[in-house]
């Protein structure tokens, strides 16, 4: 099984494209910096966001019940799903009971996590992702490569070619304005035909019993104001206690994610369309297990802004697909192995632990510390390659014995310089593929200190 490193190497092999990918995301990071700097109380805001999430998680069950009560009073049908299968079945059952065959969807990482689209398609429902980036990857039959910028890995020429085949745009046309206009026309007809709209949830408010959805395109609003049936799917960690808390999170979300002061549309759904129906599906799917783990609990506070991806020097140079999980980057590298430690064992190691993610995260999740903690967990679970575990044990053995350490050091410094280059830079030497080894000094510091002090 190939892990992150192999897929990352394949991505990075195309160096100019990797640099382009890196620059595109760095540009978003720079926009984030500018927006964050415009708020003098930025750090206090992060602190508040983190505290609200910590508080909410400390009594999540109570707040979920409060939400359910108030949502029900608003005329919203509330459903509970233990896992992805139950979530998919609930959504399908709602759609089937309304004879829906055409569904429009706005962005929802949860439904990606649950693989809802193929489930519904197999049951005869046409599902159209309506966020432009998501529509692009859907037409390419690919998953999103980023949670906020789903098509960030594609060049406009790739999209021009795709639209030429799928939407009949002019061959060779790649102007983003022209392509966006074509998508607008195409998706508007999908909106006109849809019998139901499904959205994700950015925030669910216990106090009001409503959900808040943020988009720039307006696709969530099109999808929920034309057809009478609205289904909103949420991971249960999306809950916040009060409407006033929205201010804290909304001030952070778009600034952190895309470097905008706020998304264009921030829609508050506290009930169905007049004469329509609204359903909210609350999903666990492993979240309650994370709640029980003190080290990783705060990862449930994630508001899916994508900032940790944009800032991650590894993500920028390895692309979303190198992670092999629907949420890539630092946060994905913690969430994925929660789901399947063996399958995603390489992800916590796909980081230099630089900590940029931790400093950028609007809810102050200590991402790089959790990546490190997950490494330990994976070693304890014995899903880290034996070779690595033995190597580290051996190193520890040497380093805890000063005489052995001194001897190994001297040996290394004496032998390396006299070995033929071909041997030193042989296949065993991963360091030396692109890098020189340091020049080996004759004497170590401890050899020299006596002279120095005398």
């Amino acid at each position, binding site marked *: 099984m190939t892990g992150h490193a192999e897929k990352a190497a394949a991505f990075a092999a195309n160096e100019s494209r990797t640099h382009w990918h890196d620059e595109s995301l760095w540009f978003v990071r720079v926009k984030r910096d500018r927006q964050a700097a415009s708020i003098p109380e930025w750090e206090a805001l992060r602190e508040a966001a983190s505290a609200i999430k910590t508080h909410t998680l400390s009594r999540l069950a109570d707040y979920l019940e409060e939400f359910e009560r108030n949502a029900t009073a608003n005329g919203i049908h509330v459903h509970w799903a233990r896992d992805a299968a139950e979530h998919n079945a609930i959504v399908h059952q709602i759609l089937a009971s309304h004879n829906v065959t055409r569904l429009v969807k706005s962005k929802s990482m949860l439904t990606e996590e649950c693989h809802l689209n193929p489930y519904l398609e197999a049951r005869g429902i046409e599902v159209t992702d309506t966020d432009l980036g998501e529509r692009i990857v859907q037409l390419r039959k690919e998953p999103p490569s980023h949670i906020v910028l789903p098509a960030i890995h594609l060049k406009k020429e790739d999209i021009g070619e795709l639209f030429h085949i799928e939407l009949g745009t002019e061959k060779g046309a790649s102007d983003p304005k022209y392509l966006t206009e074509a998508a607008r026309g195409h998706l508007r007809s999908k909106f006109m035909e849809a019998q139901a709209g499904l959205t994700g949830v950015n925030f669910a408010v216990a106090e009001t019993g409503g959900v808040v959805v943020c988009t720039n395109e307006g696709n969530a609003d099109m999808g929920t104001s034309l057809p009478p049936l609205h289904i909103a799917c949420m991971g249960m960690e999306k809950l916040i206690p009060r409407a006033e808390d929205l201010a804290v999170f909304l001030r952070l979300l778009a600034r952190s994610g895309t470097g905008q002061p706020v998304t264009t549309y921030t829609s508050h759904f506290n009930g169905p369309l007049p004469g329509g129906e609204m359903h909210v599906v609350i999903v666990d799917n492993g979240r309650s297990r994370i709640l029980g783990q003190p080290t990783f609990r705060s990862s449930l506070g994630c508001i899916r802004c994508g900032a940790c991806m944009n800032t991650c020097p*590894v993500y920028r140079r390895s692309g979303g697909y190198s992670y092999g999980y629907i949420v890539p980057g630092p946060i994905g590298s913690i969430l994925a192995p929660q789901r399947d430690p063996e399958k995603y064992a390489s992800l916590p190691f796909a*980081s230099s632990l630089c900590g940029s993610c931790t400093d950028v995260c609007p809810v102050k999740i200590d991402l790089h510390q959790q990546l490190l903690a997950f490494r330990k*967990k994976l070693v304890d679970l014995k899903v880290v390659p034996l070779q690595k575990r033995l190597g*580290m044990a051996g190193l520890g053995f040497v380093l805890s014995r*000063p005489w052995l350490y001194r001897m190994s050091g001297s040996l290394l410094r004496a032998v390396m310089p006299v070995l033929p280059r071909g041997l030193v830079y042989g296949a065993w030497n991963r360091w030396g593929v692109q890098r020189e080894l*340091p020049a080996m000094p004759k004497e170590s510091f401890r050899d*020299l200190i006596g002279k*120095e002090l005398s």
Partner: protein
Amino acid sequence: MPSVGLFIPCYVDQLYPQVGLATLRILRRLGFNVEFPPEQTCCGQPMANSGCDAAARPLAERFLAIFGKYDHVVAPSGSCVSMVRNHYDHWLHGKPRFEHLRDNTFELCEYLTGVVKVTKIDGDFPFKVGLQMSCHGLRELRLARSSEQMTAPYNKVRQLLSQLRGIEIVDLLRPDECCGFGGAFAVDEEAVSCLMGRDRIEDHARAGAEVIVGYDMSCLMHLDGLIRRAERAQRVMHVAEILEKAQLA
């Protein structure tokens, strides 16, 4: 004068003895009674960062036994100091002298600026310098404000170096992006690691840096390895090697 235990990380001891000597000389010239306990080896970071706690823990215990007796412990490395300060807790919590050790282990630059409170630096370094703000020193020891943080800017390394005559500290496009070393990451994720390193070198070069200066030889070893392979003109230097040539007061 407080007693100072000199902590020279294993790879500095073996591969960069001149950095250890420079650190020793700086501290001795400031009048400190510096001791180098010879039983020291390694802080355990390579094992801990790989998740192999069982292999790392005995080294943490050794470290406490060796260094617990000093008033201060000083090392020319941000990441090794961060290991002691930020990652020993769960093994050594409650052990005698541990809290003292944790709170009194310093990276050289923070020691000079924060504890010794060096205010005057007299010396020359007529070069264009790019600072490589290695991540653990930056974001775990807070040697400077990171570019992500929206607080008042400061930089303890710049504070020291900027007093040198002739020095020009250049502005990088990405002031604190990771160099890609990352310990075992450098070989586990060789492709991305090297690309990150080359991108850093390019950023320093674009800004006109002749010398890349940092406080972690590990990161500099990685950059230097890439520079030499590509036969580029830049040099890397540890901040101690530069300060050693100046008068500190």
